[in-house]
């Protein structure tokens, strides 16, 4: 490939205008065959990857998620991060593909002749890459911080157990992990206990999570709630389930022999059914 084949006009540079020379450089660069090839490949690969944005969420939603605002925030984050990553991945993969198929390659045992251009650096490329990657990282950090603040607010921060009013509108559930069962205690309902987590739709719930033996991790999958159950400490979180249905609790921290079986169900009921369940269990509402 010699310098002359890429000139659009073999008669010489185009008629001079008042545009600054840098614009000519950009135009000239875009006219190089490899520049076009890589750009086209980037777009093609990008569009091929685009369905991932929805496929990831489809995989996450198989059992009925999202069932809470927190889970919705999580899914939004996953969606945005996928969307932002696709152009970068597409560009890198395009260069990989083009370097094998577009630029020449040689085979065989003989060491090839030195005929690649000795590009030791390229100020524009380096600056552009640094600026774009820093800007993306900055965007992701800002997005993450905002979303984190939001889910912290949606999970009611970390209100210490002794400051949670027993008569509050919110439902309080004391979650206890032990090898290898979950126990849910409802202090507002005469401390009734259950091995299935019953929640009321659209009513905020505070979880006070602890463990009797080793570290477990309380993961209410479709609600997007996850927090360690530590022995000797109470960790707090919360959520407002906004979808009725049956969901899963799993233990997400290796806790010994039967860790795999340490799972149970969540029943999110509407107000009437929840109250009748509580009455059936023998818990009259204390407040």
């Amino acid at each position, binding site marked *: 490939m010699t310098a002359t084949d890429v000139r659009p006009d073999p008669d010489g540079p185009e008629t001079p205008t008042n545009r600054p*020379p840098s614009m000519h450089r950009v135009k000239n660069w875009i006219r190089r065959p490899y520049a076009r090839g890589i750009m086209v490949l980037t777009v093609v690969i990008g569009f091929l990857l685009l369905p991932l944005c929805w496929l990831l969420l489809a995989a*996450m939603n198989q059992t009925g998620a999202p069932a809470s605002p927190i889970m919705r925030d999580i899914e939004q984050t996953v969606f945005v991060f996928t969307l932002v990553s696709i152009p970068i*991945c597409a560009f890198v993969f395009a260069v990989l593909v083009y370097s094998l198929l577009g630029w020449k390659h040689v085979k065989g045992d003989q060491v090839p002749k*030195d005929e690649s251009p*000795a590009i030791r650096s390229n100020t524009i490329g380096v600056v552009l890459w640094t600026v774009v990657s820093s800007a993306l990282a900055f965007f992701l950090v800002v997005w*993450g911080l905002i979303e984190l603040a939001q889910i912290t607010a949606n999970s009611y921060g970390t209100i210490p157990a002794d400051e949670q009013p027993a008569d509050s509108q919110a439902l309080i559930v004391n979650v206890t992990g032990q090898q290898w069962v979950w126990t849910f205690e409802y202090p507002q309902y005469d401390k009734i206990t259950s091995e299935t987590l019953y929640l009321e739709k659209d009513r905020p719930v505070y979880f006070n999570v602890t463990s009797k033996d080793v570290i477990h*991790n309380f993961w209410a999958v479709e609600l997007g709630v996850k927090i360690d159950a530590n022995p000797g400490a109470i960790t707090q979180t919360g959520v407002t389930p906004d979808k009725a249905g049956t969901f899963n609790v799993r233990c997400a921290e*290796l806790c010994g022999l039967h*860790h*795999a079986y340490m799972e149970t169900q969540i029943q999110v009921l509407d107000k009437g059914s929840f109250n009748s369940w509580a009455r059936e269990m023998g818990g009259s509402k204390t407040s």
Partner: protein
Amino acid sequence: MSATATAFGAQVPQPVQHGKPGGIMRRLNFGTGLIGGLGLAAIAAVVTNAFIPSGAASSVNYAPIAPQLVYLAALLGWVIGFMAGMGAFIGPIRWLMGRDLTHADAEYMAGKDLGKARYWKFTTDHKVVGIQYLIMVMIILGFGGLLAMLIRTELGVTWAEVFTPSFYNSIIGTHGIAMIIGMIIVVMGPIANFIMPIMIGARDMAFPRLNALSLWLLAAAVPCLISSLFLGGIQDGWSVYQPLASQGPPGMLGYQMTIIVFAISTGVASVNVMTTILTMRAKGMTWSRTPILVFGVFAAALMGLYAFPFYQYSQILALSDRIFSTSFFKPLEGGSVWLYENLFWLLGHPEVYVILIPSTALMLELLPVFYRKPLFSFNFAVAGIVGVVALSGLVWAHHMYMTGWAPAVNYPFMLSTEMISIPVGFLVLVVLGTMWRGVVWTRLPIMAVYAVIFNKMIGGVTGIYLSDVPADQYFHGSMFVVAHFHFMLMGVGLFGAMGGIAFYFPKMTGRMLNERSGSIGLWTAFVGFQITFMSMFVAGLQGQPRRVLQFDDLFNISNWISTIGAYIIGVGMLIFLGAIISSWKYGDIAPSNPWGSKSLEWQTPTPVPLDNFAVLPVVTERPYNYGVPDPYEKEMREHDGDLMTKVGAK
């Protein structure tokens, strides 16, 4: 005292020679090491057993204490006896006796004229240590890979329990730690030891005996790990969180001993590597003339040096909790499980960069040779490595977002973790820039680089999800995490190391690696790898927790696919291993510089002579001086000049 020896043409005064060169080292080898280790282990076990009152019980889990103490004593006996039998303590003893090494002694210890026997001894030559590391790495990775196949078998057979839960949990933990150890040394062992000193124009490492010591300490540590499998194993994952670990069977002591010994080995090796790089570069090899792999190795040594002590402390404290009933990590007696988690992850995160950075630097080292181009923006590559090292110690708590330890620190740790993507991005730019408009010579090592970059992108992007607290709230502790770190550690670390081993194979063994079978192995493993871990991502998205033995039917399909992929990886790796073994024995004899590389290590004859260079080289130019002047640049300059004059004229 008037004796002298001739070394590189100079007369050097020598201490008195006692007996034959090498002295007692002539009688010591791996066999005496085994005898010493097993003998002392047996003695220690019998003596300890005799001193324990029968019926003594541990205050931790009320298990009988005798097996634990006997096992611990046996492990200690094994390590000390093995090292003594290998001759590791001969140096200090010699100093105490006032007998310095003569030139002849030193040459004997470097394995001069010993033939194959030198590979079975406490040999100080860095090339011998490099080969010993290579063999050791293949054994460890093979062992870990076998356990991986067992894990996938259990997870693929969704209709029954193949193994008991306790055995399954212990193979998970053992697979984890064996692979971590294997991956830490896969580049830092064979390549940093064999190639790096030649690359910087040195005759050996700075401390040859410490070099041998680090290798044989590793050899002493691995049997501790394997022995634990027979005593209940490590049932708590490789991270052995407390207090679950304190419930564990005596096998846990094997893990703790392995880590304590391995951390010493890593510290010794790190100091050695760093000193060598700082002080022994050839004349004229300024930092800008030092190959990028040397920077990568230095960075890994530096991170290893500050990170491993945390790990060692955490295991010493855990051992003390178990044996002496202290309560560092027992929450009900005033200890803290979060203390353990912090100590552990203060190692845990720098450690992944200890694995990734040498592999990435190795990849950068290969690119210029196969593209016949200089490395794009050398300064940027160095900046990337420096950036990763600088941030490596500030991100550990992103493993603890969901532990409830300190929810407020999630904000700064999210910030520091996502910042890592910037220096890592620099390294990607250097790769792409070096590929840019190059004519690639499609040989096996460079194909591994393509595989690595693909994996690095997938691993990197999924890492961004995990670094983000809201997304991590879903992914933490799920199979998504497992798939992510396998993409980084195996996809980048191991595939990069395979490329590096293929590249340096001719120099290390004197024979060419069979390109055909090597490529088949590599690509089979790559395809299997994608199948396994892509479907593991799906399992994670669906919500499958990690380290489980059975799961909901929902996850069946992705696990079946994953298991099929894992068997394909196994086949691919066996083919690659077969290529290594058969090429090592029957491969074509390699020329001294088959890749036409311009760096120092390829200018030595193959096999590399004992002292590497008869005359120490002097470096006069930057590395990677390949290629021709850029035709476009010339055109551009003329074109711009044209325009400037015309625009100016108008």
